[in-house]
């Protein structure tokens, strides 16, 4: 069995990649993917911790988190579509009517 610590380390890496990607990429879809990466990092950590503590609640948490991530994607994509309809781009840098 894999040491939960390694899983945690991987999840930390994923989290950092996700967070870093979120503010370096322009395309909203990719940013959304980065967010998913962060959520998945958390999921992994939950799973690892559940193993570590031998506590089943962690699995439940993971499942719920996946559901959350899914609905997030649904909402996100819907919003991006609407944005594209109005702005004809989903580049985060170009959608900046509102500022200051």
């Amino acid at each position, binding site marked *: 069995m894999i040491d939960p610590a390694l899983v945690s380390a991987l999840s930390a890496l994923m989290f950092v990649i996700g*967070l870093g990607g979120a503010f370096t990429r322009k395309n909203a879809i990719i940013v959304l993917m980065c967010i998913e990466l962060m959520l998945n990092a958390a999921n992994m950590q939950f799973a690892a911790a559940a193993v570590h503590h031998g506590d089943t609640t962690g699995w439940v948490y993971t499942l719920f988190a996946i559901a959350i991530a899914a609905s997030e994607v649904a909402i996100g994509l819907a919003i991006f579509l609407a944005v594209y309809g109005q702005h004809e781009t989903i580049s985060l840098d170009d959608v900046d009517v509102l500022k200051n």
Partner: protein
Amino acid sequence: MSNLTEIEPFGEGFVEAMGPELILFAGMLLLIIVPNLGQGTFRIPGTQLRLPWLLGGQRFEFTSDPRLPAWLATFTLGGAFFNVLYTFSQGLDRVAIVSESGKQLLLVNGFSRIFELIFFGALALAAFSSMNRLRVNGVGSKVSETELFNNRRQADFYILMVTCALGMSVVALAQDLFVLFIGLELASFSTYVLVAFLKESKVGVESGMKYFIVGSVASGVGLYGLSMLYLWAGSLQFDVLATAFATTSSTDMALPLIGIGFVLVGFGFKVSAAPFHFAAPDAYAGATSPVAGVLATASKAMGMIGLVRMLLIVAAPETGDGSAIWLVCLGVLAAVTMTWGNLAALGSDNPKRMLAYSSVAHAGYMLAALTAVGAWNWDAAVSGDAGAAAVAVLTAVIFHLLVLVAFKLGAFLVLSILESEGDVSRLSSLGGLAKREPLLAVSMFIFMISLAGVPPMAGFLSKLLVIMGIVRVAVGDMGAELADGGIYALGDMHWVWWLALLMVLNSAISMFYYLRVGVVMFFDEPEEGREGPLPAGWQVRAAIFACVLTTLIIGVAGDAVLRLCEMAAQSLNYDW
């Protein structure tokens, strides 16, 4: 202290305990079903017999009324609101919803209920006053319609409001961090869509997108923090976390501290604390005003619950001689937030952005108050009755959040009237309001000076309470020590006193932009094309009037509300 009743889900007493939530749930179902009722029939397969089953088809006149969903939502939220009030009047029972394994999932007590009061009140007002105004002609919209949305789309809007309320009430009740998080996400997702609801408008969708993306990142960080806490403690129950935190030696603090820090980010976004607030002004500016008002009041209160639970329950300040570990961090956050918000609002010409920044500033004031709680027993010699001090500060925070609904949401509602006749992205949109509708202008002025904290408005009392709380912690029992011949200097007070000073100075800065609104309304001429009477709509005016009355009455005679908040604060932690 009333006894705690533990109930399993759907067990005996569950309906009474979960009354408001069940009302919301029922209302949500009604909102889904009722607007779809029509002459729809169901043909029994293989026959020509058509049974009317009322769904779909040519809808009834009643069910196709675009105002119907709003009424339904208003009654639902209002019903929940009054249900909460009723339970208060009945003397609240503490009820915990426990899982089969005995873990507390939800806890009904004064603290959670008073926040529900805030949520339902704000949402009910927002729903009620949105009744006549949900049109397409938002800011910069391509499509222009003069009619209201059809009632199906109306229904979407109000369903989201109700789900938002449901999510928020889960946040208020949750005793498990993850349950809290789920509630938070439910409310957040609803608000993302509400913000982006005007999909025909450029700014509407843009604000929605920004709010969504930044919010998602923040909750992603928060969730990761959650997972770290879980990794550390093996549970996300608040009491388990609190015990674990209190027993962990300071050398092993790394994991929980990172976890708590990450969770703070998630909640920080909700209360729009700097530097997590950036999406807020954009969101407020793009959303319809009632929704923005909800963001500034209910959503902020929701974030505040998270902070309170995390900081005061989990990472509670040590009961011995010392202060919370996060004290400096939160103090800095508070100072930066209030100053940033006020400075940014100072130069903002967009009334909604201005209110957004002011909301950031108010978040800073409340963070300062929480900081003070963190310092509650900073020095055994002079802290005095620290528990009472902590209750006082928390009371102040709750009171502030409560009255904020009246004057912050009220201000947004005034803007919403103007919004439904056109653009409100410039301060000059408010020009000549005093001539066009004096009572509205006076109401707006009252909201503004209440936000600034001018007596005798509720905003003054709340700000006073916050300052009093901070000073109380900073001064502690020095008075008694002085009377016994102790000698103290300014430097002997806890440094949170300086947060109070910063806070009053910030109030002074805020006076600039609040007053400017008054000047524009009472001094400037209306913009071209806006000279005529304002759009009609008694509902929104009634809501504004209610807000004004609340602002004034609580400002002048807020004792009862204050006691309610005190009771709520006391019920957060019975150790105090």
